[in-house]
């Protein structure tokens, strides 16, 4: 109760503590664009993560928003620069994804396109390249059945209250 802030205390706090309150690292558009290209497009691991994300249903617009807000929050670029750079960055990203043959949602899709994509995603047509189900031998099938039976027997029925109790005579 006595630790509550006194009226006006917020005005005394240092508001320059956040990275986006300080001058950004890249204030020039060209420098910022080259930095993003080097940091994201030239990084194999980051591009692999991007491909995984867009293949799993995250739209390219959402991805660009996420990446740019991250750059703003770490003080690399200013919020205004993020708005200026968003269009070119998105365009290059989308072209790269097209060149790699990745199927993705743009973020400006129509309802029909969204439905078609959802169907593809449900059927595993995007993430899973091989559509053939794995074929099991008879031995493997028997083993699987045995394991399933064992597991089913071990499952307790009725929870803790349904556990067998010792009857007291």
């Amino acid at each position: 109760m006595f630790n509550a802030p006194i009226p006006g205390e917020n005005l005394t706090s240092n508001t320059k503590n956040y990275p986006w309150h300080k001058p950004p690292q890249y204030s020039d558009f060209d420098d910022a664009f080259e930095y993003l290209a080097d940091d994201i497009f030239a990084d194999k691991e980051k591009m692999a993560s991007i491909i995984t994300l867009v293949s799993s249903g995250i739209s390219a617009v959402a991805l660009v928003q996420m990446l740019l807000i991250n750059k703003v929050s770490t003080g690399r670029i200013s919020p205004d620069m993020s708005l200026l750079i968003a269009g070119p960055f998105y365009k290059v990203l989308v072209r790269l994804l097209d060149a790699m043959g990745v199927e993705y949602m743009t973020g400006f899709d129509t309802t029909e396109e969204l439905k078609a994509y959802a169907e593809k995603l449900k059927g595993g047509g995007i993430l899973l390249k091989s559509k053939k189900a794995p074929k099991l031998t008879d031995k493997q099938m028997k083993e699987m059945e045995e394991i399933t039976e064992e597991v089913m027997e071990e499952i307790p029925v009725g929870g803790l209250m349904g556990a067998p109790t010792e009857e007291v005579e």
Partner: protein
Amino acid sequence: MNDLHDALRKAISDYMHIDDLSPRKQETLKNAHGRYRYNYDTVDALLVMPQEEEEESGRK
């Protein structure tokens, strides 16, 4: 941060669908990037696929 989300979406939409904007807005958008090295035309020509190149040469 939600406002920045919306603003980013709008900025991307305007940049990608520039032909849908009014001529005045188109000019404003192109001028905003025009003074930099990576202007609208440069970015447009950055990753042109061979297929697109053929289409463009076919149009000419």
